[in-house]
């Protein structure tokens, strides 16, 4: 197979675009397309300070690399979750992220959950009802809270995350199966800071397939954590991605159409903003100042209070 642009040997064939490209043209195409998406969805400009949430995985490190190559002001934020599970998952992710930042002379903020909040994510999860079986929900709540806090405190204009199209399509698929209109309303390339205490969020990679992101990381020689998070085994998102990929194999472009048609339908008013009751009824957490869906402390602060309570009980014993 040959590159559409220069006829040299192609390294990737993107069947949904009927486009095969060589290494140089693929990397250039990724940069051009990212710039196009940033502008199309009014994500941010070259005057904005962007905080990139980096996990050490292929998507977030590639996003940081692309934004850096495009000349955006972009610093990184790594959250040390304290996941070990015999493979030193967090330690290795952090090492790779620090190496990436150092090689490019980029600024990296590191928040270590155990250092700041007393316990690692698996331990925090274990002390709560919602995280007793699996820490994923607690991990998600904590990451969202910390990302928002750091972005606010450090004065960033926007928080960029490495969600790719497969991530977005899997979430959309799950929320469509249950007609979770509140979640559907909030899904999109941009999550506006509609309330005080919230930072604007952007997903510049939301139209790239996960396969393209892995190819970009590989071709740009980005060292990323290849191992899956040990807690991701059996995750619903992976199950949905697998289903969508099987459909995609028979119908190239189906994942992209699914997501883009949803965005168009939303734009056309298919989902009425009035039914987003959660958003209407948001309150401010008295402890951290971030918005929360019920009066009183937010879920994260309540979780942390519980962890402190358990730690104090242990000390007293």
């Amino acid at each position, binding site marked *: *197979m040959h590159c559409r642009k220069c006829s040299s040997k*192609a*390294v*990737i*064939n993107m069947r949904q675009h009927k486009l*095969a490209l060589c*290494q140089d043209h693929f990397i250039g195409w990724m940069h051009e397309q990212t710039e196009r998406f940033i502008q199309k969805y009014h994500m941010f400009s070259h005057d904005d300070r962007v905080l990139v949430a980096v996990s050490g*995985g*292929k*998507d977030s490190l590639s996003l940081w690399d692309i934004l850096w190559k495009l000349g955006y002001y972009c610093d990184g934020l790594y959250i040390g979750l304290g996941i070990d599970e015999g493979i030193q998952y967090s330690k290795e992710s952090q090492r790779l992220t620090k190496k990436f930042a150092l090689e490019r002379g980029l600024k990296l903020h590191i928040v270590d959950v155990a250092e700041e909040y007393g316990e690692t994510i698996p331990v925090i999860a274990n002390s709560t009802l919602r995280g007793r079986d699996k820490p*994923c929900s607690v*991990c998600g709540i904590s990451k969202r809270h910390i990302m928002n806090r750091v972005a606010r405190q450090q004065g960033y204009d926007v928080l960029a995350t490495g969600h790719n199209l*497969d991530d977005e399509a899997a979430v959309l698929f799950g929320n469509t199966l249950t007609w979770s209109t509140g979640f559907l309303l909030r899904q999109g390339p941009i999550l506006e800071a509609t309330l005080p205490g919230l930072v604007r969020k952007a997903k510049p990679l939301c139209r790239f*397939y*996960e*396969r393209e*992101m*892995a*190819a970009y990381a*590989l*071709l740009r020689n980005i060292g990323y954590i*290849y191992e*899956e*998070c040990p807690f*991701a085994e059996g*995750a619903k*998102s*992976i199950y949905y*991605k*697998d289903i969508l*990929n*099987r459909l*995609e*194999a028979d119908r190239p472009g189906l994942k992209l159409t699914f997501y883009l048609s949803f965005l168009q339908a939303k734009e056309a008013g298919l989902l009425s903003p009035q039914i987003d009751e959660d958003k209407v009824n948001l309150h401010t957490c008295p402890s951290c100042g971030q918005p929360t869906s019920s009066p009183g402390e937010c879920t994260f602060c309540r979780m942390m209070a519980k962890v402190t309570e358990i730690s104090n009980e242990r000390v007293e014993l």
Partner: protein
Amino acid sequence: MEAKLSAKLILRDKEYEVKAGMTIRHALEKLGISSESVLVTRQGQLLTDDEVLKEEDVIRLVAVISGG
């Protein structure tokens, strides 16, 4: 000495032997691996799935799907 007529495909800790002479796309189909979920590499070089497998080829498949 008998010539090897197979190629090896490696995905994480699994190894698969397939006949040389078929395309990577065909090999993945036979193994039930979705071509959307992997990248195909030979000696670190990225390949498209129309590439024909040669005898004694060692193909590393890079899993691209992550959860969370």
